[in-house]
């Protein structure tokens, strides 16, 4: 079977279709689905091709078209399944490998994309589209590697690739792909899929701030300047916490809630609004509250992020609790806001 298939694939599409007309209905149905896709009706195209595949589950051309339709619909994972199965059933065909690679790349999985393209080229060493695509994948991976090497953050700006999906099966075996058969990924809806996440930027490492008011942790003079800077930041964090405790102690709900960042993660998976409601109630409740902070230790895991551990002495009427607490704060518009609050040490 594979041998006769390969013989067919070597022929131009028109010839192929005429040979395939031994079973005319088969060619017609795939042709119709192709037309529907070209006319911008992927849903109908998918229905048609599914109906066809129900009767001819092994048909390579039909499955290939289904993969294309799914890709067109941005159903990348499903499209990957289709092309992946095709590469298993027809390992000698380069086109499914190529498209599989393009879809992996859309998902940011460049290693997988690279492997698939290398397979496509292994089966057909002069397969131009795969070569071009592989070049793009190498470039993409190189950019990622360079970014990690140089700690650059390009955001998603550089994540554009110009990978070509093969639009027709049997298009490029042994011959360069026709320009018409090559579509840039950016022109199909798939291109809108989320770009590959780049590794997070790592800023020059901060120097830990001296604990306040406990003994200063050692800081080499090597970094006295940044140490001084982080001293100032430690002061700012300490001040923010002081204000937070003050707002809490004076039953000032807006001021209290104002100390929490937009992306504050409420404990125990509560929603933000449920948490706020509870806090409003507890903080506003007219009674004397006193909150004192002692043994504060602040570190800066990232330049605009602080971890503050301290002992919180909370008194309200007969209620008294002394607990250790750890807050994660983020600096937002020059203000230190609470992003996470947890009881106990980090």
């Amino acid at each position: 079977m594979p041998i006769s298939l390969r013989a067919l694939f070597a022929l131009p599409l028109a010839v192929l279709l005429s040979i395939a007309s031994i079973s005319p209905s088969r060619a017609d149905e795939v042709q119709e689905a192709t037309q529907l896709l070209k006319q911008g009706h992927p849903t109908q195209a998918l229905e048609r091709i599914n109906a066809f595949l129900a009767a001819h589950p092994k048909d390579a051309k039909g499955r290939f078209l289904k993969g294309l339709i799914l890709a067109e619909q941005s159903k990348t994972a499903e499209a990957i399944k289709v092309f992946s199965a095709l590469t298993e059933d027809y390992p000698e065909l380069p086109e499914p490998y190529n498209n599989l690679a393009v879809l992996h790349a859309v998902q940011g999985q460049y290693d997988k994309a690279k492997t698939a393209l290398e397979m496509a080229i292994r089966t057909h060493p002069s397969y131009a589209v795969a070569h071009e695509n592989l070049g793009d994948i190498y470039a993409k991976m190189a950019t990622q590697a360079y970014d990690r090497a140089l700690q650059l953050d390009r955001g998603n700006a550089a994540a554009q690739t110009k990978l070509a999906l093969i639009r027709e099966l049997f298009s490029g075996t042994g011959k360069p792909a026709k320009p018409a058969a090559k579509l840039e990924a950016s022109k199909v809806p798939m291109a809108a899929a989320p770009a590959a996440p780049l590794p997070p930027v790592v800023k020059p490492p901060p120097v830990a701030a001296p604990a306040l008011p406990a003994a200063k942790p050692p800081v080499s003079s090597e970094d006295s300047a940044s140490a001084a800077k982080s001293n100032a930041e430690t002061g700012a964090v300490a001040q923010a916490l002081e204000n937070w405790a003050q707002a809490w102690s004076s039953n000032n709900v807006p001021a209290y809630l104002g100390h929490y960042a937009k992306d504050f993660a409420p404990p125990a998976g509560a929603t933000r609004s449920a948490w706020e409601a509870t806090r409003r109630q507890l903080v506003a409740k007219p009674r004397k509250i006193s909150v004192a902070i002692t043994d504060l230790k602040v570190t800066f895991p990232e330049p605009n992020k602080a971890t503050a551990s301290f002992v919180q002495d909370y008194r309200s009427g007969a209620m008294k609790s002394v607990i250790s607490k750890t807050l994660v704060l983020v600096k937002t518009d020059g203000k230190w806001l609470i992003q996470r609050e947890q009881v106990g040490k980090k």
Partner: protein
Amino acid sequence: MDRLFSAAVTFAAFCLSMAAWGMGESPRPAAVHAAAETPEAQLVNGLLDVVHNRLDSALGRIDRLLQSNPNFRLAHLVKGDILLARTRSIATLGGGSDAPTERLEGLREEAVARVRRFRQVVTGEKLPAYLLQLDAKQKYAVVVDAERSTLYVFENRQGTPRYLADYYISIGRNGVRKAAEGDRRTPLGVYQVVASLPKEKLADFYGDGAFPINYPNEWDRRHGRKGHGIWLHGTPSDTYSRPPMASDGCIVLSNQDLRNLTARLQVGSTPVVIAERVEWVDPASLRASRKDLLSAVESWRKDWESRDMGRYLGHYSAKFSGNGLDFKQWAKQKQQVNQAKRWIKIRIGEMGAFLYPGREQLAVVDFVQDYASSNLSQRGHKRQYWLKEGSRWKIVYEGAA
């Protein structure tokens, strides 16, 4: 894929030119290469694969290296080059990146330093000229070659050093000869580890530990050199290694290397000699300079015991200063003290003796001194700096250690 592979040739040429850097003389024992592949060896072997146009093998190596050391930035750079070298010509390390040159500079320097380190070939049993004698309690000694970005560890074998290990390091971004606070230079001289700061007490910036050394020492202070806080320390958790000249004066090791070194650093004892470029000598030559210096010390001891003030003071340089006294004041004080004595007995032991790196013929001697006399006895740690004036060693500094 031949057409793609051939594009690697210019990059390979660059790697070759880099590799050629390492062909010079050097003392590193060859056996080190046979050991399990260090990250550095993996990196350099990856580059050698590129040289031999084995891009697949090169990429495999670098990928494995990055799997175990995901923060090795230089390896990421090389990976980028290997990938691009398949489709276009990469003329220099990081050549495919559009990053500004100054950002690439540090990584390129690290590549050159590491290739150079790796290609060092043993040229015999040579030893650093500085480690004249180690005290029995000094189990190890550290020698830093600033130019070669290398820290060597030696083991004390009956007072004589024996090579144990070496590590890639970073030094001050402005180089060596620290003289002022904030000059971002690494001091040159003979120092000691004076403290150990565990990871828990440190900012992430310093990595898995830090070992302050006693900069500025007596000699530095005498020359008005300022600054403090020169440490041996590790790297931040997101950084495998830093470029060769990157610190503000500290000596920075990868955390893995720092952990290996930690077991061998004795607070208050381990000598750390920092040289711009280490001078390597034959063991025989090292023995000769040890004998030369130690016989001067012995002669000083005897002359002190003899209470012959002319001979005793003849060991001191006119440039002497110590305990806040210059030579004249020192001579006067010693004359007064010694005249009152009917006898003096001096015993010295636990001696470490080090030649100072640099052009000057300077040596540092540390020992325990047992002093007994007709009217006073005491025991204490002493440090002397000896300077060779003409053909004679003379004391230029003396004080408690």
